[in-house]
């Protein structure tokens, strides 16, 4: 019994010793981990090089972007508004606001049917790795409640696409509402692609779509137009993908088969 108890206490000591050694080793390991963390920061600094980022540019102004900041899945993101200054310049808007504040009579800017408004859209590589980009442009009409209308023609919202400069339209993936464009060349760091649109206009034939004419009330002419009170909407999405292993990357990200030519341009099948 006594012998057994002695053995037990020896065993306890042994276990404690092992535990102490383990703890000690643990703390050493902790220390070396701290050292590792220190090193991994330098390592992080090195992978900073692989920050992907893309910016949608309208009339030489950055509208929306999403750039990786190099760590912890943090992105520098911004989503802006298209067509904000379609009818008036920033200065004109300020002048109008000032006049309104002074209770002066202000003539509101009018959307002129058929007029080609400047709408210069393109893409800039705002990351620090090269990339390939594609763009999806949506055009549609909304009613007063903001519901998308599927029975009014998106083709009356006329965008002038430019395609002899490296951009190509994927006709198969495009519909009346959606236009898919690829930039076939590699977009280098900091580089801005050529414009893929330059103007937007509303087809004057929207004014020909009249349901109800009458309303002959004394001397007043009133007419109801189908497109009156509707909102036309333009939406653009830019997608960027790494150039390394680009065939697989594009297949994985966009589900499209591409062929990489010797000069670095892509051809889409």
């Amino acid at each position, binding site marked *: 019994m006594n012998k057994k108890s002695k053995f037990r206490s020896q065993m306890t000591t042994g276990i404690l010793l092992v535990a102490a050694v383990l703890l000690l080793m643990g703390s050493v390991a902790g220390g070396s981990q701290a050292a590792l963390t220190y090193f991994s920061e330098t390592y992080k600094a090195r992978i900073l090089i692989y920050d992907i980022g893309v910016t*949608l540019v309208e009339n030489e102004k950055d509208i929306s972007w999403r750039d990786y900041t190099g760590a912890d899945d943090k992105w520098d993101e911004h*989503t802006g*508004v298209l067509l904000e200054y379609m*009818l008036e310049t920033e200065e004109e808007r300020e002048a109008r606001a000032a006049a309104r504040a002074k209770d002066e009579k202000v003539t509101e800017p009018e959307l002129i049917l058929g007029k080609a408004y400047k709408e210069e859209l393109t893409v800039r590589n705002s990351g620090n790795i090269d990339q390939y980009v594609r763009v999806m442009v949506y055009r549609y009409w909304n009613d007063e409640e903001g519901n998308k209308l599927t029975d009014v023609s998106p083709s009356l919202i006329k965008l002038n696409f430019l395609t002899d400069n490296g951009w190509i339209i994927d006709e198969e993936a495009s519909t009346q509402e959606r236009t898919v464009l690829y930039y076939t060349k590699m977009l280098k760091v900091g580089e801005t692609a050529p414009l893929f649109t330059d103007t937007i206009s509303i087809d004057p034939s929207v*004014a020909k779509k009249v349901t109800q004419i009458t309303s002959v009330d004394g001397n007043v002419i009133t007419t109801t137009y189908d497109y009156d*009170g509707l*909102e036309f909407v*333009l939406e653009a999405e830019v997608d960027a993908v790494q150039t390394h292993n680009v065939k697989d990357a594009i297949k994985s990200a966009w589900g499209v088969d591409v062929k990489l030519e010797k000069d670095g341009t892509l051809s889409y099948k």
Partner: protein
Amino acid sequence: MRQKGKKIGSVLLAVLALVLVMNFSVGESMAYFTTYATARGGYWLTLESSSKIRERMVEWDKHIQVENTGETSSFVRVKIFAGSAFGLLNTDNASGKWQMEDDGYWYYKDPVAPGTMTEELVISIKVPEEHAASFNVTVIQESTPVLYDENGVAYADWTMEADVTTNTQDIPVGEGGQGDE
């Protein structure tokens, strides 16, 4: 035997762990660098176009002006009808802005902005004695939204005219007044 079972268990666990680790690394290498940016914008379309005729009778002259009461600029034209008994209608187009075309309409050259009026078109009416107590001259007025070609030059497309409204005036001679209601 029991010992052996334990050993197999450990080996299995090790294999499982290895598979998990490998799976994880496979997942890693499958991820590509991608990003995106989106934006949206739009405008409400106001297509309402309406106009009003303003008329004054001064002596035998009918002063016609068209006011744009809508929210968009429009082109206007007017046509004047009178019974054949009244003979000739002499028109005075002092501003030079009105132009008579072959179709019998007087066209106003410039677009009329919302809330503004055209220059006057004055019609002198020759009323024979027997009709002097009451006469009837009708002015038809039409408007159409201003359209622009791609170069921003304004034009009117009268084939898509808004509507035709007749304005029948029956004014006792000598009494002037506003023609609009």
